[in-house]
């Protein structure tokens, strides 16, 4: 599992490859916080290549979303497959995040 980060215009796009779980969520958190510190404001996390997410992975997303908002920024999510959607719905986190079906839609929604 790994996280790759790149810029699309002024949006920081993070791809989550593999699982987002207790064993690696700190790495995601740190990478995004580093960008936030550098002054970035717009973040998109793309789950097209993600397997499963556990509660600690969800927790990191919640906490990042809060920190980004505190800096006047925005976090969006894209490409949740059906199972990941179910996970967000079960926890009502689908009401907390801006979720787009595709990366393009997410990029143009900022």
């Amino acid at each position: 599992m790994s996280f790759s980060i790149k810029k699309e215009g002024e949006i920081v796009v993070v791809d989550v490859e593999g699982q987002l779980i207790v064993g690696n969520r700190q790495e995601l958190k740190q990478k995004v916080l580093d960008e936030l510190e550098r002054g970035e404001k717009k973040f998109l996390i793309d789950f097209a290549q993600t397997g499963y997410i556990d509660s600690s992975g969800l927790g990191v997303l919640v906490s990042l979303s809060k920190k980004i908002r505190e800096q006047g920024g925005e976090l969006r999510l894209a490409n949740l497959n059906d199972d990941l959607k179910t996970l967000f719905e079960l926890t009502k986190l689908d009401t907390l995040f801006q979720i787009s079906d595709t990366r393009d839609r997410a990029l143009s929604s900022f």
Partner: protein
Amino acid sequence: MAASSQSDAGLRVSLEVEIPSDVAFIERVVDLVRHSCSELSFNSHQLALNVPVALSEALSNAILRGNLEDPAKRVLVRARVDDSRLVLEIADEGVRFDIDAKTRDATDPDNLEREDGRGLFLMRALMDHVERFDAGPVGTLGNVVRLTLARG
């Protein structure tokens, strides 16, 4: 494959995995259990969501909350799978806990923005049954969390 057109009746798999109290092992245990379930034709949502997430939660609780990452303590996972269901037992060597008292409603507006506390909630949402019992007799340490899921 000939295998997939073949009935599962009569195939029974039981798996025991012992790991150190280190979250780096979680993914491999999940893979092993998931693979057993896939040989018994559990459905794709169970293989991609219910089984991996519920088991990851139970494992990280056993490692982090139960064994407190003590390298002298181990986590034992037992999985029994047949053509009707999966029964998972995750055993730690930690202090006993009250599973009902510790379960939080993650969808409660007060909890929605919390970073933690969704593990037991998700296990219950994703499995048919979640039980906790003592690993040994009165006065000893250790929790066993048992998760049951009917094949869908």
